């Protein structure tokens, strides 16, 4: 420490305790009283910036001391430095006008140095007031002033400020220039240089120069790490996350956001934490996790507002509005976008104003206000002119809008301005390819249209596969289904003219496979260790235990209290958050999407198997019949609306009958015929038109048809399909082809039964089946703990679970089974290891799933298949205790004692069909005999 610096520090320390005269006397004896006073003011500025009153008090005192100890000119200089010192504290506490006035006063008649210092200090208050042009002029003037007197480090600081303001003005080229000119002055000061590089990296992002930006951030990150600056490291981690997000690298971005958030937590920096949270929310929104994103925005916004982060607040509002718009709340989204736009306008940021205009245009288009939408798109495109990335982000949605309105001329003009190969951002590229595909379709250039759609789908699937966990992959396709639907329609209506006979049907089938259960297909082959790790985290386990206990409180048959329900919600939300954080730090199965069997290989992989895959284009329900390496398209089976209406009526009748079956069985008599009529009506629509099919068929349902009891449908004489066909259901043909690769190791069977007073037949079932299971592999009641079941399941070729089941459509991952020690949910089951196991579940509603966008069905079946099972026997509705026991008895009676492991799936599928028919005589109403379905690979 130099003598002057140490004297300045002492002067500041003694300011409180001694009177002006004593200090003045001491000061006159110092080496350079004027420098000591300036040093003390500089220290004061740094140390007490958050306390403007203290700064004003101490700075005024130092000015008075200067007046009594220095020559008038020197004293006047110190008085001006005192004003310079007070200004940042005023700015820090949002007293911007006061700060600017003070600095203007300081400049009057001052030396060049003080003028330059004052100009530098007014950049920030001017910018915070949104007077960006003046702020920019002040920053550049300060830089010139410092250069003129040879104070180059200060000149560089002024340029750094100029760069920040230029970015806010939407002039990234000028910002990059300012930062680059500033760098040289800081070569000997790595942390400051790192700060400059970090800012420069942002300006490079604005210019779409992502590689250079990444390099700049990495340089900054390593310098901050070397200097031990934790908070700065967190900021750059957040910046790199943002960069990853903008480049569409969702997996990397999630990891970095989480790392940054944790670092900010350690550094106790709530404002920055809120910023990172808002950015992560933006990413989550882009990845289709809308509920989670909305929750994160709600959490982040107060923090952003409290920290005065106006730009970040506006950005969060814009992203939140996007979710609202996509979920059909256009009017609310318009309000929020308008607010964000005002925020960006006050910050003089035309880039983000253009982004707001694009979003506004989409919302107005959603409300059918197409002229207004068109004008807003044009405004945004004009505003983005010259910035290739921003321009493409505005043109692509404008083109989509034009194409949807079949405005050929406009679509053609806009399409000319888009070239996907210029961008390495997969989501933007996918949007451009989709828009170009639609434009080509409008121009009847069908080959180009097909190619572009296919390219867009491949890009989206690539991104989907790079996500860490099933839930992220499932959510990702939200907002991206348009391209799949358009592709399917195109392939149906305009199969490639170049294709060989029969090839057109095959291409249409492949298109439907690309649109269905891709996340599940990835889960069937992906490494699940990350999800298993999440499931083993201590706090996760503790909360799961609590949730299990809460579920126990709801099982008595009575409605749970409001308190219990509220606590269940809290615990579920907390678990979601833990999973999000844990999974965000996990490694991604980056190449998983690439390892899923391509649709063109699926038909051959299915071999002799017959698959009937349903799909809908608009309201037209159609089926692809795959058999012996060929595909036959059966179009116009029925109106989807009509099929849904019948399926709804059937569900209504069955639910009512399920209750009547135990409460007033006599009432069933009058509904048996009605149910049978509905089953026949469905059979006539869904099955009869398909013509001759082999005896073993796998059905791939579509949407709500996942809840249809396929084996119970009939096409004539009230004869169920189960009596003629061995039917299995699969989530997709691709998933089936993947499941066919699984084979059970060994021939051990495990029996689990958890009876209670409500379902005493569960115990009777276990007793009746006991001869088929060894005693050491039979777990009854409290012996059937999750850990023991998990241990035995790991080498079981068949696992029989006779226990209560519960399905919750509002939270399908909480579908659960009652074990001896707890309720085991679909989440818990993901942590199991089932080596190609056949799992038989005779509880209620175990086959029910929530079918979400992308034909992903979520429930127990998904978890069990992802955990390694090859085939499941499950129920579609609340099952009757006695009838289900009878089904189980008949079912096992039909599986030979000496059934080899390789034949098990086929035997199980056949036995399930025959057992249903067998108990039908005893229990004629379908509610009794028809709930069970086989799901997976039927052999």
């Amino acid at each position, binding site marked *: 420490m130099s003598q002057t610096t140490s004297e300045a520090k002492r002067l500041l320390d003694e300011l409180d305790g001694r009177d002006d005269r004593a200090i003045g006397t001491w000061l006159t004896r110092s080496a350079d009283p004027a420098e000591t006073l300036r040093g003390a003011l500089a220290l004061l500025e740094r140390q007490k910036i958050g306390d403007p009153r203290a700064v004003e008090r101490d700075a005024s005192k130092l000015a008075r001391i200067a007046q009594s100890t220095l020559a008038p000119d020197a004293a006047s200089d110190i008085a001006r430095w005192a004003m310079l010192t007070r200004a940042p504290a005023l700015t820090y506490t949002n007293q911007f006008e006061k700060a600017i006035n003070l600095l203007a006063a300081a400049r009057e008649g001052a030396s060049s140095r003080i003028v330059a210092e004052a100009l530098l200090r007014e950049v920030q208050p001017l910018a915070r007031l949104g007077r960006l042009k003046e702020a920019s002029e002040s920053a550049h003037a300060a830089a010139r002033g410092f250069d003129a007197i040879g104070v180059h480090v200060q000149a560089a600081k002024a340029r750094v400020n100029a760069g920040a303001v230029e970015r806010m003005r939407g002039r990234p080229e000028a910002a990059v220039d300012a930062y680059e000119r500033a760098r040289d002055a800081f070569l000997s000061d790595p942390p400051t240089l790192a700060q400059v590089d970090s800012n420069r990296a942002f300006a490079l992002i604005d210019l779409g120069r992502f590689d250079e930006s990444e390099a700049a951030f990495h340089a900054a990150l390593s310098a901050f790490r070397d200097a031990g600056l934790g908070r700065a490291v967190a900021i750059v981690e957040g910046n790199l996350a943002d960069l990853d997000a903008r480049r569409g690298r969702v997996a990397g971005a999630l990891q970095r956001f989480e790392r940054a958030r944790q670092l900010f937590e350690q550094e106790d920096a709530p404002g920055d934490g809120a910023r990172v949270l808002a950015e992560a929310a933006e990413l989550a929104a882009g990845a289709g996790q809308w509920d989670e994103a909305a929750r994160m925005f709600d959490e982040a916004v107060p923090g952003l507002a409290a920290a005065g982060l106006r730009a970040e607040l506006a950005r969060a509002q814009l992203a939140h509005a996007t979710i609202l718009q996509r979920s059909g709340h256009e009017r609310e989204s318009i309000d929020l976008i308008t607010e964000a736009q005002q925020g960006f306008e006050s910050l003089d940021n035309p880039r983000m104003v253009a982004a707001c205009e694009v979003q506004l245009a989409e919302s107005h288009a959603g409300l059918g206000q197409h002229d207004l939408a068109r004008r807003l798109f044009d405004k945004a495109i004009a505003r983005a002119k010259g910035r290739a990335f921003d321009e493409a982000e505005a043109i692509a949605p404008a083109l989509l809008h034009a194409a949807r309105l079949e405005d050929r001329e406009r679509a053609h003009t806009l399409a000319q301005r888009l070239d996907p190969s210029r961008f390495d951002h997969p989501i933007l590229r996918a949007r451009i390819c989709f828009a170009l595909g639609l434009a080509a379709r409008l121009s009847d250039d069908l080959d180009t249209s097909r190619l572009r759609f296919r390219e867009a789908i491949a890009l989206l699937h690539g991104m989907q596969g790079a996500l860490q966990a099933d839930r992220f992959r499932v959510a990702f396709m939200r907002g991206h289904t348009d391209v799949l639907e358009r592709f399917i329609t195109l392939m149906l209506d305009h199969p490639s003219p170049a294709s060989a006979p029969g090839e057109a049907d095959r291409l249409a089938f492949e298109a439907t496979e690309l649109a269905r259960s891709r996340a599940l297909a990835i889960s069937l082959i992906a490494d699940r260790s990350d999800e298993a790790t999440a499931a083993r985290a201590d706090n996760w386990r503790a909360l799961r235990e609590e949730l299990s206990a809460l579920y126990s409180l709801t099982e008595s048959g009575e409605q749970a209290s409001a308190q219990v329900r509220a606590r269940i919600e809290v615990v579920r939300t907390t678990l979601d958050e833990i999973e999000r954080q844990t999974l965000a730090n996990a490694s991604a199965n980056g190449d998983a999407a690439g390892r899923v069997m391509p649709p063109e290989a699926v038909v051959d992989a299915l071999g002799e198997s017959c698959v009937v895959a349903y799909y809908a284009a608009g309201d037209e329900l159609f089926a692809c019949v795959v058999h012996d390496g060929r595909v036959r398209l059966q179009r116009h089976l029925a109106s989807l609306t009509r099929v849904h209406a019948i399926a709804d009526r059937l569900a209504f009748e069955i639910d*009512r009958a399920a209750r009547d079956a135990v409460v007033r069985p006599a009432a069933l008599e009058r509904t048996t015929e009605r149910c049978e009529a509905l089953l026949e009506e469905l059979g006539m629509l869904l099955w009869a038109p398909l013509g001759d099919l082999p005896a073993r068929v796998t059905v791939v349902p579509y949407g709500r048809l996942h809840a249809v009891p396929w084996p119970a449908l009939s096409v004539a004489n009230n004869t169920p399909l189960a009596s003629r066909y061995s039917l299995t259901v699969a989530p997709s043909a691709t998933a089936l082809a993947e499941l066919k690769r699984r084979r059970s190791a060994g021939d051990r069977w495990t029996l689990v039964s958890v009876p209670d007073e409500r379902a005493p037949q569960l115990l009777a079932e276990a007793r009746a089946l006991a001869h088929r299971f060894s005693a050491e592999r039979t777990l009854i009641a409290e012996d059937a703990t999750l850990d023991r079941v998990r241990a035995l399941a790991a080498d079981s070729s068949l696992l029989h679970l006779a226990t209560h089941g519960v399905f919750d459509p509002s939270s399908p991952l909480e579908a659960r089974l009652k074990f001896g020690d707890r309720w085991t949910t679909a989440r818990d089951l993901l942590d199991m290891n089932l080596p190609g196991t056949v799992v038989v579940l005779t509880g209620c509603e175990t086959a029910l799933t929530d079918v979400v966008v992308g034909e992903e069905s979520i429930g127990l079946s998904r978890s069990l298949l992802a955990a390694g099972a090859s085939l499941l026997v499950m129920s579609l509705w609340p099952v009757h*205790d006695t009838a289900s026991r009878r089904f189980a008895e008949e079912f096992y009676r039909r599986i030979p004692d000496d059934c080899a492991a390789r034949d098990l799936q086929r035997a199980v599928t056949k036995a399930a069909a025959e057992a249903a028919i067998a108990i039908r005589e005893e229990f004629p109403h379908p509610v009794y005999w028809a709930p069970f379905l086989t799901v997976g690979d039927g052999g």
Partner: protein
Amino acid sequence: MEPDVSNEALMKFELGELAESEIAAIRARLHEPDVATRLAHVRHLLHAMRDGRLDAPSAASVRRLKRIPRPDLFASLARALGQAADTLIATVAYDTRLHPAVAGMRGGASAAHVAYEADSLDAHIRISAEGQQRRMTGQVTRTSGEPCPGAVAIVRLDEPGASIQLISLDDAGMFTIDLEVGRYALAARCGERDLDIGDIEIS
């Protein structure tokens, strides 16, 4: 003007807890439509409770007894289908949301199912969830199970100014409507009678 006969007095009347003079006073008022209607509701409620069909009075009964105003679903039904011969008050026979599982089943139903009964009409309502959307599928029939022509009137109660929707019953007496989460009032016409189904919370 005669003083109002309180519901409490009607309840005691029905339970036989009044003195003879009080009984006579009420009998003298039974020709008044309001008193007769409220007595019918009290009687219905007591019967339902005696039969163990109710844990709590239905929303419709409570509303009637407390005289809470509600959007006039019956006027809508009358405008569309003509005046009904009379109006029955439904009571809840069972509600799977209150009793999700019963002995003899291996779990509960995920879709809510509510059954209503009145003197000569029955109604069943199933509420299933699909994302934020809720679908109500229902059936209104004579107690014998025989369908009758008619319609259902429904209005959202927690959204001021919501309009009443009318949905025709099909040949099986069924109807379907997609709804948002909220509180609704329901009434139905089946043949010549109206049925006051009451309020239902859709969550």
